[in-house]
């Protein structure tokens, strides 16, 4: 596998390893204007904050979701450039997949 394919596989493993992570990415992509605290994000997804926190941290670690401080609160937002990069990497990977004989 090429480096790009390895990277794409890593992204897919992270994003698809839990329903909450996939839902988080989907939520921010469909609603790129969301800028909110973990409590606000969890509420929009129908969860309690502690349920989504670790998955939110993983997706933030991937760079798709950005994090910054506003006063003493941490807020999360879609990192457009990084999200586009990840989508393109995954897209290329999937396009080049050949069916196994």
């Amino acid at each position, binding site marked *: 596998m090429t480096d790009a394919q390895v990277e794409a596989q890593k992204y897919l493993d992270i994003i698809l390893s839990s329903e909450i992570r996939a839902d988080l990415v989907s939520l921010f992509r469909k609603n*790129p204007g*969301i*800028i*909110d*605290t973990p409590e606000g994000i969890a509420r929009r997804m129908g969860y309690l904050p502690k349920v989504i926190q670790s998955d939110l941290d993983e997706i933030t670690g991937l760079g798709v979701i950005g994090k910054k401080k*506003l006063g003493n609160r941490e*807020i999360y937002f879609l990192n457009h450039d990084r999200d586009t990069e990840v989508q393109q990497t995954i897209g290329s990977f999937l396009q080049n997949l050949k069916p196994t004989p």
Partner: protein
Amino acid sequence: MTRIKSGIAELDQMLRGGFMEKDAVLLAGSAGAGKTTLALQYIVNGIKLFGTPGIYVTFEQLPDQIYRDANSFGWDLRKLEEENKLRIICTSPDLILSSEDGQSILDYPIKEIHPGRIVIDSMSHLQMYIGEKNFRLEVYRLVSQLKSRGLSSILLWETSQLMGQISSISDMGMSFLVDSIILLKPVEIDSTIRRALVILKMRGSDHDKSLREYYIDGSLGFVVQSPFENFEGILSGSAHRTSGEAFVKTLAAIGSRKKEK
């Protein structure tokens, strides 16, 4: 004096040319009255007709739903965002107030697109977060912040009463803090629900004081019509024909019964 037009011709006539620049306008109405549609149209018209970028802040409705609803009127909001003419910000109400170090969630979008208009949807949600005790103070702070940034704002407020007489727009003193108030109200006339718009207040300017009927058109958006005629008591929840009109109607009914005989 610069006027900020809504782009809805009849409404701008009622406002004697438009809202006053940098004014805070309270747009009040019950659920389903059309507040979001009017507010979105204010932003979209600002961009398309007057070249003024805008920000739409939503606390409850997701942007995805707003995109979908706007599409039904032919407004492509995603495209306007791509063109850096619009930002739809979806956040928690308390984040809209600036933090202790002076930072605001609006800092970045304002720097990005240099808006002249903003909608806050809605102040009712903000009240739920802040609580009654601090609400008036925080709204004053928010309104001052928006004005200092040169933004002409529409603040949505959900009135609790769907029908009948409204004794006050809000219990929290919002009416005193804003420069203009527009009320949207469903009214019952002749066993049919119709919609009434009235400008209750406009600081520093004359305005149309009549009750106008409005409707929401699938392709035009918010449409303001002519004033209600021959009815009184509309806002009280007991609309009835004026005595002159009732007399004419009775005469006409007697006349048609005589003809039938």
